[in-house]
């Protein structure tokens, strides 16, 4: 049975320019179940990272929470003050970033950085916190953990640094881990190690993961459910197998087809013509319509998310009929 842990309702995040709201994330809704891995995929600028920063209350200066809410247990993030955020960050929700070097503090030792979060959230002594730090290093599979505790980030390799980031993120046993492109900066052999580690730890600690990535291979490997984002909106929500077996949205289809398949040989890759529109300069109606091979008159109005008989939700007029039929059967 799926237990809903976190719910995002009509979240809108953006910048204000000349008294005009320019949305970067434009009214998205989704939920996260206990113990599952939810993937958010999309290309640069689709709003996937902004979504994750909103979940942590870490929106950069100039970017505002325009409307909508995020609900975790009985907490409404909409009304949060800095103090409230601090009690959630690291304790309930933790995050790991793409670039492990720039997210670790170069002048503190590994032990200091793990202990900081433990001392912040829990009523423990420094000695106990250090013991916890050592445990965490063992959990994330750091070789010679006793020495590494007193080393600085620059002494470690990229893969090790990402392990340290995971150790910091998990030190207070959070329920949700947000991983923003956790393996993008790493080599494939190290990526395989880190993904393996994340799966292992998830099983051990029963946490939920929100995995943000542009790499569909990583999605296939890790996720239970996937959301595809395009130009600040969710265009498709599906179970991972359904997404790969029968992608619905023309954008998802184009994305999957433009990937070179290692099992097939073809002369040319199919590609999506055109480029991603910039925020503030969005096409009217369906945001994907200027690049879509199936564009027709209806596309001048932005479609809602339709349910398909398979259970996939898709934001495209092509599926309006299928969803109406399903309602009629019910």
């Amino acid at each position, binding site marked *: 049975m799926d237990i809903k842990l976190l719910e995002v309702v009509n979240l809108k995040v953006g910048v204000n320019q000349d008294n005009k709201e320019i949305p970067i994330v434009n009214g998205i809704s989704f939920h996260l179940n206990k113990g599952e891995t939810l993937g958010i995929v999309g290309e640069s600028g689709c709003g996937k990272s902004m979504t994750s920063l909103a979940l942590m209350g870490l929106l950069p200066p100039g970017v505002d929470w325009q409307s909508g809410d995020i609900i975790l247990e009985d907490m409404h993030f909409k009304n949060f003050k800095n103090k409230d955020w601090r009690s959630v960050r690291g304790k309930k929700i933790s995050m790991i970033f793409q670039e492990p070097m720039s997210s670790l503090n170069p002048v503190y030792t590994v032990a200091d950085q793990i202990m900081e979060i433990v001392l912040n959230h829990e009523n423990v002594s420094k000695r106990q916190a250090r013991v916890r730090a050592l445990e965490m290093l063992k959990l994330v599979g750091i070789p010679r953990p006793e020495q590494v505790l007193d080393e600085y980030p620059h002494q470690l390799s990229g893969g090790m640094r990402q392990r340290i980031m995971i150790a910091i993120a998990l030190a207070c046993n959070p329920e949700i881990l947000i991983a923003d492109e956790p393996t993008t900066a790493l080599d*494939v052999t190290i990526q395989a*190690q880190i993904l393996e580690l994340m799966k292992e730890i998830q099983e051990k600690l029963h946490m939920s993961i929100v995995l943000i990535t542009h790499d569909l*291979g990583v999605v*296939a490997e890790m996720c239970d459910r996937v959301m595809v984002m395009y130009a600040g909106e969710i265009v498709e929500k599906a179970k991972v*197998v359904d997404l*790969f077996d029968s992608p619905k949205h023309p954008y998802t289809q184009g994305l999957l087809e433009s990937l*070179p398949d290692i099992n097939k040989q073809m002369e040319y*890759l199919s590609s999506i013509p055109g*480029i991603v529109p910039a925020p503030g300069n969005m096409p009217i109606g369906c945001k994907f319509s200027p690049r879509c091979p199936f564009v027709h008159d209806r596309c001048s109005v932005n479609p809602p998310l339709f349910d398909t008989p398979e259970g996939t939700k898709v934001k495209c007029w092509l599926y309006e009929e299928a969803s109406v039929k399903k309602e009629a059967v019910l």
Partner: protein
Amino acid sequence: MLNTDELLRVEDLKKHFPIKGGITGKKTVQHVKAVDGISFDVKRGETFGIVGESGCGKSTAGRAILRMIEPTDGHIYFEGKDLVGLNKTEMRKMRKDIQIIFQDPFASLNPRMRVFDIVEEPLINFGVKDAKERRRRVEEVADQVGLTLAQLKRLPHEFSGGQRQRIGIARALISKPKLIIADEPVSALDVSIQSQVLNLMKDLQKEFGLTYIFISHDLSVVKHFCDRIGVMYLGKMVEITGKEKLYDRPLHPYSQALLSALPSSHPLQKKERIILTGDVPSPVHPPSGCSFHTRCPARMEVCSTIEPLLLEAESDHRVSCLLYQETETRTG
């Protein structure tokens, strides 16, 4: 000796970067062996891929071929002529035939030059004096890579990553080169744009009979784009073969691990994975014997003492691993 369909032959190419130290900071204390003796050949009209993880020396190799960084040792024969030893003027002329496309389309274009000037500059360098002729050539090449005439008047910052890469390709193409070294040309691009650029490069290859050296860390892109592939690890070529052979039956344990580490293309496809332990050792102190032996799942006792050679294990399939080599004759 010269094989007519061989365009480039690299022999025992080395690039060792000195590390300065000591009290004055001028003494060379150690060397980073970024490229440590690689040999391969590239045939006319083919795409030769070089894959490997960060720090394996693949980019250094690409740049050393163009002598953008001076090789420490070795030979580079381009159409039978050794590029090492050419003086500056001669080398400059050779670069008309060998061009390069860079990874980062944001850093490799001068932000203060208009696209027209960026693309035109090689022609000025190579002594095309007639401005009208230059204009004609720039417009022609812009059309070939899919840039409009209006876009030629703009500055690089007005373009997206994929379009900038087209500008980079136009600049490389304008001198009508025979060989283009493409150093991670699509790594910085989104997948939907990546396929546009790869298709363009393939079209241009067909139209002009180009030869590519395609340097990448992305195994699925390399499989799609290349004919023959060399796998690099820690400054050495560990395996060279045609792409079918490499992907169907990789011989070197490192290639096997690399291929198995690739994320699967479908959630239900579960892969038998060889997870390598540890990290790539430092190229300052590469391990003795086979440089991969510290991480190799198939390591034998001899691997830490004897260095394997890149030898043919089967026809058109060279591999540098003692599993496939007689070692008795080589001890000592």
